[in-house]
């Protein structure tokens, strides 16, 4: 099976969204018990469930189109092959850091994914529409918590913005980069417009939640990519998910693997999914 340039670009782009949602979903699961009330904990559980559900739906779509075996993208990849957003690779340091990073990530994921909303790929467009209805409430819930932050949490949010803002903002890549998906009509909104929308969303909430001005917020969200930028994965070349986070996502510990059952597949069940030559055409790494 040969994969066209457009299909390849679409796969890379969808993996950026899916892998980022995958990691973010695990953030929500980890942070869930830090909710401030039972409905709050339940809300984080729901957000984690949504994020992992979106991830798996995109994985199934790609596996179907690329004729990969089911679960290949979840269980058949090594962490180096992930297209996740780099800012999520370090664990949240405090409540303010968590809120700021999760909010920026949610805004970025939605803005990039929504470029396919009116595109020629109707199956994907329907998925975007469905996901968008759910992701709106993720952003709203996080926004509510940011607006209710204490002075101490507000200071933590500003520090988080200073430390991680640039990593999220550069996810949209360099300005003026060629885009075969836009040229082919698979996406109808350019990545530059998506980035502008992301900045608009971020500035709107962060200026209300902190005492930062619009110019100050934008200063923390520059459109600059490093020299070793991997355009396909939208992150620095060689950046990988930390081992501890990867173990949480794809556990290898026997007790944890047993707890995941009766999930249809696990790393132990399907070791032959990994790195088989007949799947080389996908070249998802």
């Amino acid at each position, binding site marked *: 099976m040969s994969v066209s340039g457009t299909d390849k670009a679409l796969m890379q782009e969808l993996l950026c969204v899916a892998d980022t949602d995958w990691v973010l979903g695990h953030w929500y699961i980890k942070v869930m018990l830090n909710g401030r009330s039972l409905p709050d904990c*339940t809300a984080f559980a729901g957000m984690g469930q949504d994020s992992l559900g979106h991830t798996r739906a995109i994985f199934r779509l790609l596996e179907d189109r690329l004729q990969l075996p089911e679960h290949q993208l979840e269980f058949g990849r090594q962490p180096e092959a992930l297209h996740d957003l780099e800012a999520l690779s370090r664990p949240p340091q405090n409540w303010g850091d968590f809120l700021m990073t999760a909010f920026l990530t949610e805004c970025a994921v939605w803005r990039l994914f929504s470029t396919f909303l009116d595109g020629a790929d109707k199956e994907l467009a329907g998925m975007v529409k469905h996901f968008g209805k759910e992701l709106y409430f993720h952003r709203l819930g996080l926004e509510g918590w940011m607006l*209710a932050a204490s002075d101490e949490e507000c200071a*933590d949010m500003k520090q988080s913005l200073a430390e991680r803002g640039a990593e999220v903002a550069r996810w949209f890549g360099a300005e003026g980069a060629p885009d075969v998906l836009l040229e082919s009509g698979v996406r109808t909104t350019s990545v530059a417009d998506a980035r502008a929308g992301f900045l608009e969303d971020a500035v709107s909430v962060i200026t209300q939640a902190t005492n930062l001005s619009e110019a100050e917020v934008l200063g923390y969200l520059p459109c600059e990519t490093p020299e070793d930028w991997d355009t396909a994965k939208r992150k620095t070349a060689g950046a990988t998910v930390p081992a501890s986070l990867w173990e949480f996502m794809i556990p290898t510990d026997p007790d944890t693997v047993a707890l995941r059952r009766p999930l249809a597949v696990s790393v132990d069940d399907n070791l032959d999914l990994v790195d088989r030559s007949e799947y080389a055409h996908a070249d998802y790494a």
Partner: protein
Amino acid sequence: MGLVKQKTARNTMDWEYFEVFAREEADGPLFHLGSVSAPNKPAAVGQARMVYSEKPWVEMCICPRAEVTPVISVNDMIGIA
């Protein structure tokens, strides 16, 4: 990945309660699903959508409990005292 360890104590008693209602069918009745407590309306909307997502509701809304006007109440003898 570590847990978020630093947590500022908050007085959750100050939070507002919101009652959550939803409709399963466009021409069906509006059900009272329960309530959420949140520091503000955006957080309450987010919580309500996440907590009460067990059915594909066609409509969901929240209302601050303080805005609910009692007609018959277990707590008050309305019209007498």
